[in-house]
């Protein structure tokens, strides 16, 4: 497999895994959980280094996952006290975990250059270099790992589609029919944590955060059907992966950054030209409405009352 294809496939798999969960995060107004996770995993990496003296990807992903899950559950618990709102809970938990990680590095691990850029902020350009032999073919490790995560997410969302839909739309009703919103919320957050952690290592944190938030938000501007929102999210994710790679190569810039910018561009376009919720469509609607109201008023004041039947 060529390096180009391998990188695009890696990014596409991240877009798939993230795109399945992103719409639910956006609809539940917890989009920024993804950014929280991206910072909260640091102590996990430090702990793994301290215990096993390794930076091998699988143990690192394991350690990071533990702290990512800790982070999302702590946010959930803090929110559950009803003393702290969801957004503030996020802003309290992740900097604390990040601080623990930074202190761990300076105290115990400063000699190993466990520097943030290369460890949690993986670089997608290097993803094709680590390979695993699968059925005699060398396949990038990131592709193998991310395929697994994407598959799990597909299963999760397909199998629990109606449960996720019901608990996101109307949690109280869900409780009366025996579907626990708390359970589904935790399941979703744990899935986000594991997806994010696995993807950080291959493509870097910011691309994962971007792909969890931006395509789903863009899709939210474009559609009124949940399944269509998920489908649109996936499409925008893949467009970002392909176009971003092409753009990065042609101007020799960061691949992850370029992919993020393409996603942002998609958002900007949707914000302006979305047929139902875009700025242009809405201002046209407003103008049309006011014009028709004016016309009716004009008809109504005519003495013959021609507008009586409108």
């Amino acid at each position, binding site marked *: 497999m060529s390096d180009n294809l391998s990188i695009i496939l890696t990014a596409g798999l991240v877009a798939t895994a993230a795109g399945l969960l992103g719409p639910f995060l956006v609809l539940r107004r917890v989009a*920024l959980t993804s950014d929280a996770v991206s910072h909260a995993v640091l102590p996990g990496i430090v702990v793994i280094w301290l215990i096993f003296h390794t930076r091998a990807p699988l143990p690192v992903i394991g350690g990071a996952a533990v702290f990512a899950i800790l982070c999302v559950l702590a946010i959930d618990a803090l929110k559950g006290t009803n003393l702290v709102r969801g*957004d503030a809970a996020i*802003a*309290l938990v992740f900097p604390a975990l990040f*601080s623990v990680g*930074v202190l761990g590095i300076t105290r115990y691990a400063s000699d190993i250059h466990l520097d943030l*850029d290369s460890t949690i902020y993986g670089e997608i350009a290097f993803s094709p270099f680590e390979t695993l032999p699968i059925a005699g073919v060398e396949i990038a490790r990131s592709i193998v790992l991310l395929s697994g995560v994407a598959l799990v997410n597909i299963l999760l969302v397909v199998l629990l589609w109606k449960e996720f839909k019901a608990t996101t739309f109307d949690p109280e009703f869900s409780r009366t029919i025996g579907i626990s919103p708390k359970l589904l919320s935790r399941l979703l957050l744990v899935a986000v944590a594991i997806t994010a952690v696995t993807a950080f290592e291959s493509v870097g944190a910011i691309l994962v955060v971007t792909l969890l938030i931006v395509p789903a938000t863009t899709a939210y*501007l474009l559609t009124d059907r949940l399944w269509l929102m998920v489908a649109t999210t996936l499409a925008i994710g893949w467009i970002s992966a392909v176009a971003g790679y092409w753009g990065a190569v042609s101007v020799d810039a960061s691949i992850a950054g370029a992919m993020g910018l393409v996603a*942002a561009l998609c958002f900007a376009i949707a914000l302006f030209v979305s047929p139902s919720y875009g700025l242009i469509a809405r201002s046209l609607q407003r103008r049309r409405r006011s014009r028709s109201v004016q016309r009716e008023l004009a008809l109504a004041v005519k003495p013959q009352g021609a507008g009586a039947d409108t």
Partner: protein
Amino acid sequence: MGSLIDLLPLAYPDAVVVVGAALLGMTAGALGVFAVLRERSLVGDALAHSALPGVAVAFLVTGAKDVGTLLAGAACAGIVGALMMVGIERTSRIRPDAAIGVVLSSFFSLGIVLLTYIASTNNANQAGLEKYLFGQAAGLLERDLIVMAILSAISLTLVALLFRALKTTLFDPNFAGSVGLPVRVLEVAMTALLVVAVIVGLRTVGAILMVAMLVVPTVAARQLAGRLAVVLPVSALIGAVVGVTGALLSARAELPTGPVIVLVGFLVVMACVLLAPGRGVIWRARKLARDRRRTLTEGVMVDIETAIHAGPPPTAAELALVSGRDPRVLRRVLRRLDREGMLARDGDRLHLSEIGAAAAHAVLERRNLWSAWLEHGWQLQLPDAREPNPSDLRASLGDHYADRLQALAVKES
């Protein structure tokens, strides 16, 4: 500024850091109120991330690497990002969290692309630009403190001058608009103040940890106070105390300042959330358990009293049957009543002891008083909007009115 630093019994560099942390904590504490209470706690996160492209553009445009220029770049990018957040929320159906997330991801992606571009233009000068994201309090200079102090003073004065308008807008933007306040301008102003706070913190604790500095003091202060006029100064105070404590601890332990400050703040918030009187998790849980227990005990006492009036004293099993209570729960309550000397047992038949009977009568009287309130309360002509608390009508209405209520009930019957 210099004399203040000399006054502190600390080594000069440590003293600078402590003063910086106090300034930062105070400013972030006061200004963070306008993020947390608008449910936009993570605005700081987006502003912090948007500093990266700001720094990169400032470097590209000026070629300079001095702190002032780069921070000015970060501030400009922060204001652009803030306006975009407000704009996205205002003009579309996107919620604050997603708007923050979009701005955050877009700006940071842009920053990364710009950094790679700078790197590819072979300018060896660029190394370390991204270090601005992670703060180095140790590098703080007295000159930085003066800049911080001026920015803090300006923003805090602004808050003091606009306090009433800001409060109205925070609480009820629609009402604020209806009385002619420029709500949009005020909302942008609040976000602009946050930009100032983030810029002030960038050098000391770094961008990411700045998120916590904005939120910690307000959340803690909110647990302790209920009025904005109190929350704001308390928040500033908590911010300053957290900053100083963290800075001193980190100096002693030779650890980086930012993370220590943030962890101190986190502990303070957790303590407030758990222990705050009248509100904290533990306080509430204990109160709930106490109330439950009392309701249950009183209910069982009334059950016994009623049963005794109706016939022979009941056994525990009979009581469970009559009252429809879980026998296990009932046994537990009876044991508690035994301990408190409320029960007088006669074989396995249950009586109330003298104090038990008195307590049961008190409960019944409270309940009768409540019935009397429902029936005759409208005749009382209470002097103000006081409302009865069913569990203690006498205290909530005042003795005078409770007596009148009783008299009315007696007259009627």
